[in-house]
């Protein structure tokens, strides 16, 4: 069985997800894309990765060394499993690309296509790993050079555009505070900053505010209003002491500011188990996000892990009449399948069992998205309980680098209300610090 679209009427009337889907269906506009030469029906505005998934096209690329199949695993710009060539632009994240009529998408790094790739033999030649330390040195110079040429041709990410794209001019902005992340913490922070009389610019990678809220299958759709200047669909790609580069629709804005607040939330990780990179192995938030767009990623679903999203997804699936295996305390031992997941071995409470499935949902607790704060110079510490790194900050979100602050779940686990409170608390601290430095 394959992924398919669901509509609001399949869900309990009045449920949060049914209301979301009804809203989408009201404005849905059918468009046709092309993937590797095949027409694909889509809805305008939805993530292209989901249009392709709904059409049963899960394998989008091949991995660099072994040419293993790659597919969308996170649907939020973190795993890079969804890279495609869009038009003549290589390396575009299909999960962040909004479907539009006439789009031409091609698989990358695959010969001839991602669905069937002749170089997948590399995976079998080197069943454990390809040791480039020895492979490249032990056989002498000539072999070495040939291998390099071969490796270069096989690896890489896509093909360059036919024509040079030209220089895209940048803009500049100057504000008191740059806030990255428009989830609960970031939104509460910018409101507080405005009340304190400070100018702020809010930046978020998503097309609209809401943060983690946007993927909640148990909450009715909500469009928080943003009272300050904001850039959506925009990535704070690099941050330096004197400026931060924000990239939106292929153009850079250089932002200068007196304080930077990173309310970047969390990322999902797929844990280490055999064939954890198979298409069809997805994070719980990815599965939930697909549902909010009306796409059911599989009909036989195994959910493993303790994160709340896993339980919420399980509830929706039961309501839909989809058979699930839900193992909140379990651990995946191994996933099986040739080009997509077909079976999974799960250990729970000392017992090991195999389950047939077409999607494996990894509901591990998310980890802090500390990268930008780290770039900015915030210190990091290993969190023993959650087994991940997190930025170090005091009670009010100040890091050890002057002018760099963190708020919300990038700091620690928080309830919905705590996130807003934290945004307010840290914003007040920023206001105090900035007044002091005037």
């Amino acid at each position, binding site marked *: 069985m394959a992924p398919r679209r669901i509509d609001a009427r399949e869900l309990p009337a009045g449920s949060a997800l049914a209301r979301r889907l009804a809203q989408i269906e009201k404005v849905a506009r059918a468009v046709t894309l092309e993937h590797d030469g095949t027409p694909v029906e889509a809805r305008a505005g939805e993530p292209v990765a989901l249009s392709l998934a709904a059409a049963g096209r899960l394998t989008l690329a091949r991995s660099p060394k072994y040419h293993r199949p790659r597919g969308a695993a996170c649907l939020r710009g973190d795993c890079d499993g969804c890279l495609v060539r869009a038009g003549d632009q290589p390396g575009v994240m299909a999960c962040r690309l909004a479907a539009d009529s006439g789009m031409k998408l091609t698989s990358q790094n695959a010969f001839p296509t991602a669905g069937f790739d002749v170089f997948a033999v590399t995976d079998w030649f080197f*069943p*454990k790993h390809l040791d480039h330390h020895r492979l490249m040195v032990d056989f002498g110079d000539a072999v070495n050079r040939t291998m390099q040429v071969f490796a270069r041709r096989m690896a890489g990410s896509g093909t360059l555009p036919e024509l040079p794209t*030209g*220089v895209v*001019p940048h*803009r500049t902005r100057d504000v008191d505070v740059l806030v990255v992340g428009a989830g609960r913490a970031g939104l509460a922070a910018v409101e507080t900053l405005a009340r304190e009389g400070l100018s702020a610019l809010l930046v978020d990678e998503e097309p609209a505010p809401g943060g983690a809220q946007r993927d909640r299958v148990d909450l009715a759709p909500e469009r928080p209003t943003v009272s300050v200047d904001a850039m959506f669909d925009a990535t704070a790609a690099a941050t330096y002491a004197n400026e931060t580069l924000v990239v939106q629709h292929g153009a850079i804005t250089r932002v200068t500011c007196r304080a930077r607040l990173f309310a970047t939330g969390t990322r999902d990780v797929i844990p280490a188990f055999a064939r954890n*990179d198979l298409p069809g192995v997805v994070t719980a938030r990815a599965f939930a996000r697909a549902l909010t767009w009306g796409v059911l990623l599989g009909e036989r679903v195994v959910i493993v892990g303790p994160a709340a999203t896993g339980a919420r997804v399980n509830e929706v699936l039961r309501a839909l009449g989809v058979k699930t295996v839900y193992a909140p305390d379990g651990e995946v031992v191994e996933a099986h399948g040739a080009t997509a997941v077909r079976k999974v071995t799960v250990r729970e409470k000392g017992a090991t069992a195999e389950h047939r499935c077409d999607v494996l949902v990894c509901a591990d607790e998310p980890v802090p998205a500390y*990268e930008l704060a780290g770039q900015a110079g915030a210190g990091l510490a*290993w969190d023993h309980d959650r087994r991940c790194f997190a930025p170090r900050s005091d009670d009010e979100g100040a890091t050890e680098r002057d002018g760099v602050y963190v708020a919300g779940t990038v700091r620690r686990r928080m309830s919905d209300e705590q996130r807003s409170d934290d945004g307010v608390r840290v914003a007040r601290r920023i206001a105090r610090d900035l007044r002091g430095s005037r």
Partner: protein
Amino acid sequence: MTAKVMLCRCEDVTLDEVDEAIALGHTDIESVKRYTGFGTGWCQGKQCVTLCARVLAERTGEAPTLPFTPRPPVHPVPLGALASLGAHGGDDDA
């Protein structure tokens, strides 16, 4: 496909490879990165740093060393956009 445990998807670095690096005495994140190339791909460590740090913590029984500084860009940026940061780029340089 074979039963590899993938720790770094962007650069195809397996658990086996990281274990070999550890066996050779690379027990801090930076050295394991230099030996295996994990974290040097498209995502610049967004997925793999946590996984590799967890393996190191398990194998050594200690908290892993701090990770390498996350490098910009957080996501790849088109060269055409970066080019404007040079001498003749934006509205402030006109």
